[in-house]
């Protein structure tokens, strides 16, 4: 282990995101990486791993707790403070928008910290994008199920084929300037209320 190798602690209750960050750090050549999911262990983990850099998700409600730990000299061996690069105002904004922040030990050069935070920011953003896409796919599937149910109701009550049932839904949606899935939902609700 070279003396200049940084010890990095990742605190994130989201295990998947934490391992994505961990992978990124290892790819960048950082070998001393510790991941912590349970913040209650934080005091001991900080004492044991004596991190140079701590990467934490901003949704973590225990951020106040962490900052207080850092201010107590008996818990941490070296002063730790939130990393803010004053020459790069956009950096802090990007990091807060991505939902991640870094705390670093006193005196660490910003050239060494910036690539770590840059990587964390881009991976946080990529993770958020993936999560959004997954949510979109899920809701698309849900929508399709609703439309199928509505088609079934129409086919049964109006005695039409599937293509005609779909055409009926579509023209209702266009006439009312509403989404197809909204028409399907109203139809299902009405059928449930009137139904046998």
């Amino acid at each position, binding site marked *: 282990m070279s003396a200049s190798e940084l010890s990095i602690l990742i605190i994130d209750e989201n295990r998947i995101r934490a391992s994505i960050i961990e992978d990124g750090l290892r790819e960048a050549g950082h070998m001393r990486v510790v991941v912590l999911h349970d913040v209650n262990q934080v005091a001991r983990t900080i004492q044991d791993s004596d991190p140079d850099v701590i990467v934490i998700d*901003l949704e973590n*409600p*225990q951020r*106040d*707790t962490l900052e207080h730990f850092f*201010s107590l000299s008996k818990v941490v061996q070296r002063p730790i403070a939130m990393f803010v690069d004053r020459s790069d105002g956009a950096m*802090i*904004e990007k990091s807060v928008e991505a939902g991640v922040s870094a705390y670093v030990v006193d005196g660490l050069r910003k050239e060494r910290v910036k690539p770590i935070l840059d990587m964390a920011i881009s991976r946080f953003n990529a993770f958020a994008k993936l999560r959004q896409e997954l949510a979109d796919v899920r809701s698309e599937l849900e929508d399709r199920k609703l439309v199928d149910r509505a088609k079934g109701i129409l086919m049964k009550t109006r005695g039409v084929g599937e293509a005609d049932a779909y055409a009926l839904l579509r023209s209702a949606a266009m006439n009312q300037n509403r989404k197809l899935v909204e028409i399907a939902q109203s139809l299902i609700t009405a059928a449930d209320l009137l139904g046998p």
Partner: protein
Amino acid sequence: MSTTRLTAGFLPLFDSALLVLARERGFAEAEGLDINLVRETSWANIRDRAAIGHFEIAQMLAPMPLAASLGLTPIPTPMITPVVLGLGNNCVTVSDTLWQAMLAEGAPGNLVAGLTGLALARVVAASPRKLRFGVVHQTSSHNYELRYWLAASGVHPDRDVEIVVLPPPLLPDALGAGGIDGYCVGEPWNSVGVATKGAHIATVKASIWQSSPDKVIGMRASWAEQHPELVSAVIRAIYHAGAWCADPANHDEAAHIMAGPAYLDQPVSLVRRALSGALDTGAGVSQTVPGFFVPHASAANFPWQSHALWYYSQMVRWGELKGSPQSAAIAAASFRPDLYRAALAPLGVDLPLADSKIEGARQQPEQIAGAPSPVAMLPDRFFDGAVFDHDQLGAYMARQQQADLPAT
């Protein structure tokens, strides 16, 4: 009328009420504001997102604008408050084990800070381990009032006990799990501790320091400078929300709104306690605290510079900052009574003439000089009888420094 959208950060605490009610009851809209409320998970997020401009305004701990202006925060940013979100609302809540020990040492069980503190001091002196207390943030009114209470009761908050930081909603759980022995927090998290963890409310902010401020609306000084008409609109919306909230006829509705899932997400009956001051202090004992939470009376929304200076004195006292006349001036200037007056004078509201008052000297309700008419004020005693005269700041801090030295 066109409306301006403002994004406002808040934490799930009862003292976000005036900000929430300003939106929910239309006081903001009447001022041309569309307030987009964002519930945050930590005071650190409120501080950082306000500093970089994600939030135009935010519910803040009263000492927070001082800390940001004094450069004690990661992103030092001159911050101000032009309006206070009310007085009081905090308690010190302890575990059942600690409460039984305090009773055995003579705690009177009437929430009075003095004798309760002496009982705690005897428990602390006899305890084989250091008791641990939780507060919500280092730069918080809770931290300073808990420390003030402990120190004036003979317990040094750094040498004799341990103080840790946890966000408000996590404190009852931490107490229940035995991680902490007590905590100082705003409602409803004391009542939640009583209802779910068998905790006891030992004393209240209204007994430690009567009519003292807790949360404020904070904003960047540069934003306030550029948007004076929006600042005035915010002040008026909060002021009207405070007047509405103070009317007992509205307590049920206010409690109902605050109890909602977007805000406190707690039972209405429990949320309502902060409004009436009728607390279940533990084991079914009910006690009513006059002035527990004051949203409007006693110029409750007026940003007294003496309040800022008291918090400043405590930051210096506990080693967060080295005192200097320049720092004191920055601290005082982060509370802006001038903006408050400018916003409300056109409405004919009675406004204090002075920017500061002597804290702790008022024993009885009385009227102070105001315009157009005098302003009725509630008592503002510290429980130990000390008086804070902002003109004698140095002497006050020197007295405390002397008292905080280890006994020889």
